[in-house]
């Protein structure tokens, strides 16, 4: 029988007794008196309460006691005593047993419904998965189930369709809505060579892509796996709770016996009253609110963060994230975009860029890539050059439309001329930690191009937000001091540790740990040791396997603001756990003395019915408080 049915049965059977409780003062009684009550309550005990008793007995044989034990002992005592009282003509309290069962089932019913709502995150993620894909087989596009898609398959995606697996576009362009996986709300434009993520939705164009990862290797599958793990993990605080809960129930039974004995033997209370006090103690003490305080908050908190593209690995990480004093950032790819970009062009922009692009057209040097990208955005096409010649350690030169053209660093200056004006601008750009390239024609430098790995647009905002939370920010990089300091000044980092070899990053993190717990934010590939050493490793972006392995928190998007959101969500979730535990504990610890009748002298007492209602309410309030986490405001809010 389901909880819902058990609840309905006990509610229907209890209702007449509830009505009688109200009408009794007016002289209206149930027909049949005690015998009617006996029949109704027997129905409740047999149909609705039997599972409690069965579980309690099974647990007892395992030397174990749980909440069912308390419910069973409490209601059975009330019921059996009432039968004895009825037969010997004393006052009965059948209704107590019936009401307690009803209220507890009500609490369990709500709890079940809400737990279902809280654990929905994994299910929602799994449902994102596409069901089938159009795969190119033997020159023809055929529709196959998702499981039959293999690595290397060419898959066609039409507008509005779901992308089946992770891969790389081979043909066509489109805009893709990746919000369900990365939390990024704007559609992203993708073309041949760009990576696509399974379960995201294709927007406007049709394209072909080659499957790179299928089945359990896809990003979505890994996210699902991580969310599953964290939702079943326990925060360290839970271990203390468990130890308490294990000895709690037997201790309560002992307390109930003591209550009865003290009232009956030493204070001379009647058998009925002593019994009522004891039963109230048993009922109020149920530690079930304690048991669900942590898991429900953890489920809701991590489920919400997963929707934002923030994956928290386990409860331990979540608890640790609250104690962080310092946040250490890797520079390249974390604070900066990781790709050098042209920031300034000195001289005639069109002419300088055109010339530079023509000379660098075939080069794969990162600086060349930056120049070509800048030329492309300006709609300049490189011209064909002749007599191409690399000048070792200086740059390159070639003949363009009959003139000697060159591009390179300051070492070229011995042979070429630089005007004082350009000289001054070059010094200025270099002071701003930019790499300056000279562009010239016929022995005369005609312009300068400044290139820099610029900070991401959101970096400064994110760091300001962290500092506002009282965190120390540190940048750890292998780059030289001058360049690093310039970047640090732009985004507002407190402290720079430059010239650190990749292998020494972990040691640097260790030194910082002397002043308090440290979070390390990196992009995962060469940062793996530092990510593992830090108290909380935050791996950014790109969803590489190594990042997912070594980070305690994985950010699907490549956005520093997510670091702020991750820390904030962990804080919110953890404080909710503590709040839940506080309420669950306070409820039990205050409830027991009141139920035992310690305050009876001042008229403060709990009947077993009230105790049952209170217990139902306590589970209910803990789950509701966890669900409220979904609604709590984030300072760096984005649409969840």
């Amino acid at each position, binding site marked *: 029988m389901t909880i819902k049915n058990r609840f309905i049965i006990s509610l229907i059977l209890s209702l007449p007794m509830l009505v009688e409780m109200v009408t009794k003062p007016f002289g209206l009684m149930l027909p049949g008196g005690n015998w009617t009550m006996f029949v109704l309550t027997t129905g409740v005990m047999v149909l609705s309460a039997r599972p409690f008793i069965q579980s309690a007995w099974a647990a*007892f044989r395992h*030397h174990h006691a749980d909440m069912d034990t308390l419910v069973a002992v409490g209601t059975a005592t009330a019921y059996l005593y009432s039968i004895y009282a009825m037969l010997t003509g004393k006052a009965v309290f059948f209704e107590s047993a019936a009401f307690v069962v009803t209220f507890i089932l009500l609490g369990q019913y709500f709890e079940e419904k809400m737990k279902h709502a809280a654990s929905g995150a994994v299910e929602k993620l799994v449902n994102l998965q596409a069901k089938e894909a159009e795969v190119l087989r033997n020159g023809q596009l055929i529709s196959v189930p998702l499981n039959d898609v293999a690595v290397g398959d060419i898959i066609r995606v039409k507008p509005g369709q779901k992308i089946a697996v992770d891969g790389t576009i081979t043909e066509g362009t489109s805009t893709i809505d990746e919000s369900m996986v990365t939390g990024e709300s704007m559609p992203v434009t993708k073309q041949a060579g760009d990576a696509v993520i399974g379960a995201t939705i294709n927007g406007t164009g049709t394209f072909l892509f080659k499957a790179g990862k299928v089945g359990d290797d896809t990003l979505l599958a890994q996210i699902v796996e991580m969310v*599953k793990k964290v939702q079943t993990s326990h925060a360290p605080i839970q271990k203390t709770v468990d130890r308490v809960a294990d000895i709690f129930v*037997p201790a309560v039974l002992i307390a109930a016996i003591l209550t009865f004995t003290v009232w009956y*033997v030493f204070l001379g209370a009647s058998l009925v009253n002593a019994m009522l006090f004891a039963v109230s103690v048993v009922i109020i003490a149920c530690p079930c609110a304690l048991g669900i305080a942590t898991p429900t908050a953890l489920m809701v908190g991590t489920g919400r963060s997963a929707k934002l593209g923030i994956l928290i690995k386990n409860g331990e990480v979540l608890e640790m994230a609250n104690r962080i004093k310092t946040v250490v950032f890797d520079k390249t790819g974390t604070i900066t975009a990781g790709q050098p970009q042209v920031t300034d062009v000195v001289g005639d922009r069109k002419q300088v860029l055109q010339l530079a692009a023509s000379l660098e057209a075939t080069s794969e040097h990162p600086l060349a890539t930056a120049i070509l990208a800048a030329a492309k955005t300006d709609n300049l096409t490189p011209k064909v050059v002749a007599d191409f010649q690399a000048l070792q350690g200086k740059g390159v030169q070639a003949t363009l439309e009959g003139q000697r053209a060159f591009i390179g660093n300051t070492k070229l200056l011995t042979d070429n001329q630089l005007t004082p004006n350009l000289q001054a601008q070059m010094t200025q750009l270099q002071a701003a930690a930019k790499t300056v390239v000279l562009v010239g024609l016929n022995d005369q430098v005609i312009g300068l191009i400044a290139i820099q790995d610029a900070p991401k647009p959101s970096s400064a905002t994110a760091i300001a937000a962290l500092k506002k939370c009282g965190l120390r920010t540190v940048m750890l990089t292998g780059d030289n001091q001058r360049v690093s300091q310039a970047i640090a000044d732009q985004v507002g980092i407190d402290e720079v540790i430059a010239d650190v070899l990749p292998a020494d990053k972990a040691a640097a993190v260790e030194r910082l740990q002397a002043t308090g717990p440290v979070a390390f934010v990196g992009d995962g590939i060469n940062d793996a040791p530092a990510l593992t050493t830090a108290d909380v490793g935050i791996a950014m972006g790109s969803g590489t396997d190594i990042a997912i392995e070594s980070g305690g928190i994985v950010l699907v998007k490549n956005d520093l603001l997510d670091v702020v959101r991750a820390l904030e969500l962990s804080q919110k979730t953890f404080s909710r756990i503590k709040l839940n535990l506080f309420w669950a504990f306070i409820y039990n610890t205050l409830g027991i003395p009141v139920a035992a009748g310690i305050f009876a002298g001042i008229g403060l007492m709990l009947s077993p019915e009230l105790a049952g209602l209170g217990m139902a309410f306590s589970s209910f309030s803990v789950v509701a408080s966890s669900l409220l986490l979904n609604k709590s405001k984030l300072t760096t809010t984005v649409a969840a």
Partner: protein
Amino acid sequence: MDKLFVLLIAAAAIAFIAWWFFGKHTTTAVSADMVTTDKQDVDVAVSGGYSPSTVVLKRGVPAQITFNRKDPSTCLEQVVFPDFGINEFLPKDENHAITIDTSKPGEYDYACGMNMFHGKVIIK
């Protein structure tokens, strides 16, 4: 006289509870049966706890633990292995097999949905 009698019974009951719940009671570990050389199976009955509560599995051999829940308690309807990321619903009075990854040796605790009942898997 009545009261003295009640007092004695209460004292005896308290002593019994303390002994029954807090005393040391041994549980026996049960090793999985090797169905064939490449598969191992073990049955665990779920009724007021897990019996046997400790299961020993051989490392590297694919393993299945078949749970059969006889207990109506809502607490026991979920079984959670935090280390493996398993959180599954156990249908009442039905066999429900859970596959365990035996690649890493060690002791893995599992528990019911409310973390009140505990069991253990030892992989060696």
